[in-house]
């Protein structure tokens, strides 16, 4: 076997008293992709940065061995580190919009790597930049090189970011969540590009929270939790026959078509059977809304019945969120109507509108910004109960009851949301939404900002509450697996229009529309026998 490009043994990284990485070891060989998977706080990103000597000034790094390209980097000076960054190791972060300098053209950013390491003569730099852009699949490189990150699409600027990382043909490429901010179809393209680099002999260290993304590329997987590798091995083995309970939990927590009807988290379900869908609670007819002449929503119709879940799935800019705001009566449509319980928003007085709002509540992707920063959990719930007509005397008891319903207890009552974890905040948001006893809850990307295991708990909670209370969900998400898992019926949206709709199993397993097929094809799957990257190439 060839010499590894990176070899790490017994790596420890600590910040003050916090030990972020506690003795991990791994190696990456040329042409191999090793993935480190973990949730937030697992130490995966710190590990990646340590390999570049960029863990931060406060970090204390200790390792049995830390070899890059055969060179021992322990005791490296800043100057020595600089000589290997960008030259022997390339580094790609997520979201090129913020990972590239917004005030400089992307061509300059790529040229910077070449210039710093004197990779080519100064005069040859512009030509080399164009070659690199072409190499990563950017069309019209001459024009693109002069453009700024905000002028490029998400996919193109991520390619430009990769071009700047591989400019000096480093033997190792570290990619830290390289596709996390991207739409699923673009994600697939970027994964293919990374796979190409690997085939060209570059070693790839992939850092991700998403096991499915990892499954597309990785030869070997390390699962990290709290700074320790809990499980590692060949990708197939880790994904199919996980040994460690944490890995098993993570895999079970991923919502997919197979997980439908099953629980995602390790909690037990209450013994309640779901009632069949009841009467229509939301009726949307031919909704249209444009902003500055651009149609955000165009001709969207659907109905939602009591106790059922209607998913709306689409990529960014598809009009999902505008639809939600129209349904909530926060925006007035240019055309069409929304009826809640047979009552249209249009033409209502402010007072009647307020009364109607009670029946349709909402939870957001970022619960924290939906809470008044000065309010404690008690005041947040108190306000919602007040709106729901709960008498003052019984509000406290009801608040505790609501918290219990969402799996929290009375101890959080006096806390401010800022002091709660992400999962707890979303639970409080759900409790608030439930307080006025609504018929419908609009869920706008409610789990997109959460770790997989927390996401699983919240999705399970939503399912349980529906069975218990018969509330209907309008569930908006970009994530096909999540939508498949929770929805009964689904709308697929693109550019403001409904491309396809119907029973979720039907639509998401045997789609009729070309766009839905395209979306589904781009979704990374755990099934490593036919990863998308290999399928496509």
């Amino acid at each position, binding site marked *: 076997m060839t010499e590894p490009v990176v070899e790490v043994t017994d790596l420890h990284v600590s910040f003050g008293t916090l030990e972020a990485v506690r003795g991990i070891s791994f190696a990456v060989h040329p042409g191999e992709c090793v993935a480190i998977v973990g949730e937030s706080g697992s130490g995966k990103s710190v590990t990646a*940065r340590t390999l*570049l000597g*960029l863990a931060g000034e406060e970090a204390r790094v200790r390792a049995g061995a830390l070899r890059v390209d055969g060179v021992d980097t322990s005791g490296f000076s*800043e100057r020595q580190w*600089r*000589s*290997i*960054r*960008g*030259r022997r*190791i*390339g*580094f790609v*972060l*997520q*979201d090129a919009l*913020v*990972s*590239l*300098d*917004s*005030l*400089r*053209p992307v061509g300059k*950013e790529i040229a*910077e*790597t070449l210039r*710093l*390491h004197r990779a080519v003569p100064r005069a040859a730099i512009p030509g080399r930049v164009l070659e690199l852009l072409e190499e990563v699949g950017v069309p019209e490189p001459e024009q693109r090189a002069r453009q*700024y990150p*905000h*002028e490029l699409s998400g996919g193109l600027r991520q390619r430009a*970011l990769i071009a*700047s*990382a591989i400019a000096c043909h480093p033997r190792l490429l570290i990619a830290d969540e390289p596709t996390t901010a991207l739409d699923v179809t673009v994600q697939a393209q970027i994964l293919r590009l990374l796979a190409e680099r690997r085939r060209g002999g570059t070693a790839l260290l992939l850092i991700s929270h998403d096991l499915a993304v990892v499954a597309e590329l990785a030869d070997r997987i390390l699962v990290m939790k709290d700074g320790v590798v809990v499980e590692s091995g060949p990708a197939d083995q880790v994904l199919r026959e996980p040994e460690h309970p944490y890995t098993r939990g993570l895999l079970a927590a991923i919502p997919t078509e197979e997980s439908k009807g099953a629980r995602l988290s390790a909690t037990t379900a209450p013994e309640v059977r779901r009632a069949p869908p009841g009467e229509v609670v939301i009726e949307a007819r031919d909704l249209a809304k444009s902003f500055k002449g651009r149609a955000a929503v165009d001709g969207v119709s659907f109905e939602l019945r009591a106790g059922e879940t209607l998913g709306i799935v689409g990529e960014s800019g598809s009009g999902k969120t505008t639809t939600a705001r129209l349904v909530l009566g926060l925006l007035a449509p240019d055309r069409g109507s929304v009826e809640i319980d047979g009552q249209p928003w249009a033409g209502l007085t402010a007072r009647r509108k307020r009364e109607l709002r009670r029946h349709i509540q909402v939870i957001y992707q970022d619960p924290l910004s939906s809470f008044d920063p000065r309010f404690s959990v008690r005041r947040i719930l108190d306000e919602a109960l007040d709106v729901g007509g709960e008498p003052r005397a019984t509000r406290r008891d009801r608040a505790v009851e609501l918290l219990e319903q969402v799996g929290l207890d009375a101890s959080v009552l006096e806390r401010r949301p800022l002091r709660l974890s992400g999962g707890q905040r979303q639970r409080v948001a759900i409790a608030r939404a439930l307080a006025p006893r609504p018929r419908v809850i609009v869920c706008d990307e409610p789990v997109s900002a959460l770790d997989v295991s927390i996401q699983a708990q919240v999705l399970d909670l939503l399912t349980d509450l529906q069975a218990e209370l018969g509330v209907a969900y309008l569930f908006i998400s970009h994530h096909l697996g999540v939508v498949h898992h929770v929805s009964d019926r689904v709308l697929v949206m693109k550019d403001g229009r409904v491309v396809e709709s119907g029973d979720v199993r039907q639509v998401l397993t045997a789609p009729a529309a070309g766009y839905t097929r395209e979306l589904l094809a781009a979704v990374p799957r755990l099934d490593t026998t036919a990863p998308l990257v290999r399928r496509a190439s």
Partner: protein
Amino acid sequence: MIRRILTRIGTSVLVLWGAVTVSFTALHLTPGNVVDVLIGSSIVTPEVRAQIIADYGLDAPLPVQYATYLGRVLRGDLGQSYQLHESVATAIGTQLGPSIQLAGAALLVAVVAATTLALLTARRKRWIRGLSSGLELIGVSIPTFWAAILLLTVFSFQLGWFPAVGDDSGSSLVLPVIAVAIPITTMLTQLMRESLELTLEEPFVLTARSRGMSDLGVRLRHALRHALVPAVTLLGWVIGLMVGSMVAVEQIFSRQGIGQLTLTAVSGKDLPVVMGVVLVTALLYVVVNILIDLLYLVIDPRLRSAA
């Protein structure tokens, strides 16, 4: 882009018109006969009185007076100072030179010093930041006129390094420039360091470092430009601040200039001169703001394509 500049010019015209109106209102709000107010404490002949009434159209109804005044200002006629026995435009014109010299030098010193300090202290060791923020605290707390008095007392009277009065030599400019530059430097340093520190947390900085760029390189080539945006915003405000501090500084160092002129006018109730200075500085403000808008376009490409 064109639209943005047109909006700016529209606002500018509005601001200037507003300043003229403020002046006109001031003239009429001042207790006493308008002619007496215009004359201030000087003594004039009945012929001059009649001339003033004719010039300002003071026997006409108020709206006509307003229109007359507006017309005069538009023609660049800022009126007559009866105490200085010359036109306000001439008085301001002759005093503008030394003031611009002082302000320009102070601004240059402040920008260079603030940029250097911010670059050196942003995200550095705790004691460096502590020291510099302590100095900045003193800098923003110390009144400019007292800083000027201190400089004068220590460096002119006690040590005798610099001349205490006058504006004929380069060395006489040193202390006034320092006095005017102190508050601007500290404000700019604080602002730029704060935005530098925010910028240095951005992912693109990590990307740049991962290419092998040095810390200093990242600061100079990437972060500084981002930190300049809020600093530029402050420029318009800085101009106003400087005009204010120059009143005291010119008086303390016995320098000629707009500040000295204004102070004499205020003490002597020479309203035409005060009004003239207000209008001229409003014009200056407007011009500076148009320049700032153009500067934004140079610094931030996102604005270029948005326009």
